[in-house]
């Protein structure tokens, strides 16, 4: 089972946890990415996320398909938030359930690391004195 979602409203940890629940799995790992209040010592007011939605969905699905095959994962949910997020709000949840725990940790790490490299989602940091598209410049 793979469940991929882009959402404009708050993400639910409980929903993701329930989505991957199964009698056949012994370990579930959840990664929860939240909005931090500063970047390199500079106060962040909020983050604005946008995506090229059809491709973001298909790239997240590719990641889940690969993780499922490589780590024999039973169920994977990847939910990513869009729009304007306040400090501490959840930007992404990745839930992976596998028969044994080691694979769940590894598969979950693979999913978030790859998501950050390939999925067409962008965030803009809003500061008191300006705004910056994250990672755009060297």
């Amino acid at each position, binding site marked *: 089972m793979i469940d991929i979602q882009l959402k404009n409203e708050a993400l639910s940890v409980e929903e993701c946890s329930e989505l991957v629940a199964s009698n056949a799995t012994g370990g579930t790992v959840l990664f929860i*990415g939240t909005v931090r209040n500063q970047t390199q010592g500079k106060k962040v007011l909020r983050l604005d*996320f*946008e*995506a*090229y939605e*059809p*491709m*973001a969905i*298909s790239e997240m699905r590719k990641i889940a398909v690969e993780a499922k095959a490589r780590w024999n994962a039973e169920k994977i949910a990847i939910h*990513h938030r869009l729009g304007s997020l306040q400090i501490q709000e959840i*930007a*992404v949840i990745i839930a992976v359930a596998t028969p044994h725990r080691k694979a769940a940790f590894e598969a979950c790490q693979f999913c*978030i690391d790859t*998501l*950050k*490299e*390939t*999925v*067409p*989602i*962008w*965030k*803009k940091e809003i500061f008191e004195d300006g705004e910056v*598209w*994250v*990672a*755009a*410049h*060297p």
Partner: protein
Amino acid sequence: MKIQILAFGIAKDIIKGQRAEIELSEGNDIHALKNKLCEQFPDFKKLRSFSIAVNADYQTDQYILNENDEVVIIPPVSGG
């Protein structure tokens, strides 16, 4: 031929809008499109990198573009 392109993230700021039309020669590839973009909008050269997606998939510089392709500029991604 005229290629309609769609931009996200910082690419939108660079082309000053979400859409632009780029004039290319028949048989031109993504490499040619990237050169043209850098020529018309020099700020693309300041980016860490940028990719081009065609019909919602990443494509290499050798991909030959067609007039009805959905062409999207993908500046460095920063999800998560």
